[in-house]
């Protein structure tokens, strides 16, 4: 259905532009007063003020520790293989490397490097990790004065990642599998 918008011809007063001038002055004055006299302007002054990102934001990937403070990573290198921009490089401990922090783990990486200049924050490493050892966390602004500074090593990644004791991926996987089993399939 067509709706005809009625366009009234401008009155003499309106044609002098004066009402719109006054209206314009009011609008600009309101904004001027708002940002100068009370309240803040909209601008966020970035390096000093930063956005608080929501929970679950996918920022930079860091390694996490378990509830005992041990390295969770077992150097399986799945993340290294799946990483699309090839940002992760893992050096395995080798046959005579140091034993893992955790009692029930076979090994842990000797070195774990993520090149944050390459990383695209895609989250595939987190997705693929069987040990829940790497998580995309809420940091989104990584800066450095050289390329080398932005290659984060194992020590730095663990320090930044913190402890993630509560997440139990295998338990959830098991629950998911049971749900799949219990799902009523339409049988003939």
């Amino acid at each position: 259905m067509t709706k005809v918008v009625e366009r009234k011809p401008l009155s003499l007063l309106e044609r002098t532009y004066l009402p719109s001038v006054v209206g314009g002055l009011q609008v600009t004055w309101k904004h001027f007063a708002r940002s100068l006299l009370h309240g803040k302007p909209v601008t966020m002054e970035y390096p000093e003020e930063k956005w608080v990102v929501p929970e679950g934001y996918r920022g930079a990937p860091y390694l996490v520790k378990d509830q005992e403070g041990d390295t969770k990573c077992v150097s399986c290198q799945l993340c290294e293989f799946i990483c699309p921009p090839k940002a992760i490089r893992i050096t395995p401990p080798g046959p005579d490397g140091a034993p893992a922090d955790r009692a029930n783990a076979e090994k842990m990486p000797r070195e774990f490097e993520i090149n944050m200049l390459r990383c695209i924050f895609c989250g595939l490493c987190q997705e693929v990790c069987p040990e829940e050892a790497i998580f995309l966390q809420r940091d989104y602004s990584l800066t450095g004065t050289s390329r080398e500074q932005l290659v984060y090593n194992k020590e730095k990644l663990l320090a930044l990642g913190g402890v993630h004791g509560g997440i139990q991926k295998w338990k959830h996987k098991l629950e998911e599998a049971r749900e799949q089993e219990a799902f009523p399939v339409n049988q003939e």
Partner: protein
Amino acid sequence: MDAIYYLHPTTQFVLFSLVKIVLAFGITLTFVAYAVLAERKISAWIQDRVGPNRAAPFIVNYLPFIGPALVRLGIFQPMADGLKFLLKEDFTPAYVRKVYFWLAPALTAVPAFMTMAVIPFGSTMGNPNNPMVIADLNVGVLYTFGIVSLGVYGIVLAGYASNSKYPFLGGIRSSAQMISYEIAMGMSVIAVFMVIGDLNLSKVVAYQGGGIHHWMVFKQPLAFFIFLVAAFAETNRLPFDLPESESELVGGYHTEYSSMKFALFFMGEYANMIAASAMMVTLFFGGWTFPWGGGAAASLWGGLAHIACFIAKMLVLMVVFIWVRWMFPRFRYDQLMDLGWRRFIPLAFANILITALVLAALNH
């Protein structure tokens, strides 16, 4: 100091004039720099932004509380801007017409500063023989209009010399715009001078000296309105910034300019704004006189107070210039011409006629 008064009158005149020229020039340049800052800050506030607040020279560290506050206000930004303009590469594109390309910025900036010469920016500094005006011409306003008209040559020349399409369009627009609005502007002040009966700007100020109710803005509001709008058009300010219109002509006539040559155009534009504000203060707002009236100052401090009064009035008008910028969309070219030729010029004529009739009636 008194030794000056024993010199030959001509020598005295030259000395005083030199001092006044240097002072007026220096103060105008400072105002240009800080008008740019005011423009950026006020624009920012109107748009809910913060504006320049980062430029901080090392001296700020030695000022405990004032320093950071000044930085927040961007007080040091004009210095940083100036330094940047000075240090930037002065690039001349290969395809420009070199002589005119170099001449145009100077032709824009010089007339803008020259209009300051006839504007009485203060009464006296205690010595009645030494009025605070560089050239007390009896054809003051004619001189101003003559000089202001020269400003358009710089812009047209820049458009021609750049040898490129956007500056060319900007130049064409400015020639049409500035010439048509100059007529309206000139017509509007005729009514003012019919009332006052003198072209000398000092006499204009003296006529309005009796206080706020003597100001021409209340006796000739229509003339003031036309003059104000024409001043916006003459100084290429929004809503009449067709010669530069960033969004459609890139930068208009100064597209091809960079570094100090661009800075000269910029300074010219702001100096024009200052000159237009000063003209409006002189013609319509009583010049240096206080709102409660009073004659020429008898002491140095009185003279300084008059100058401060003049500058304060000028600053208010400058803020209006900046404020209005964020109110209107830009006029279309034909609307601009229509407004100039078919509205303001007839209005100005009508104003002259009415003023003449009223004056004739009063004199009988």
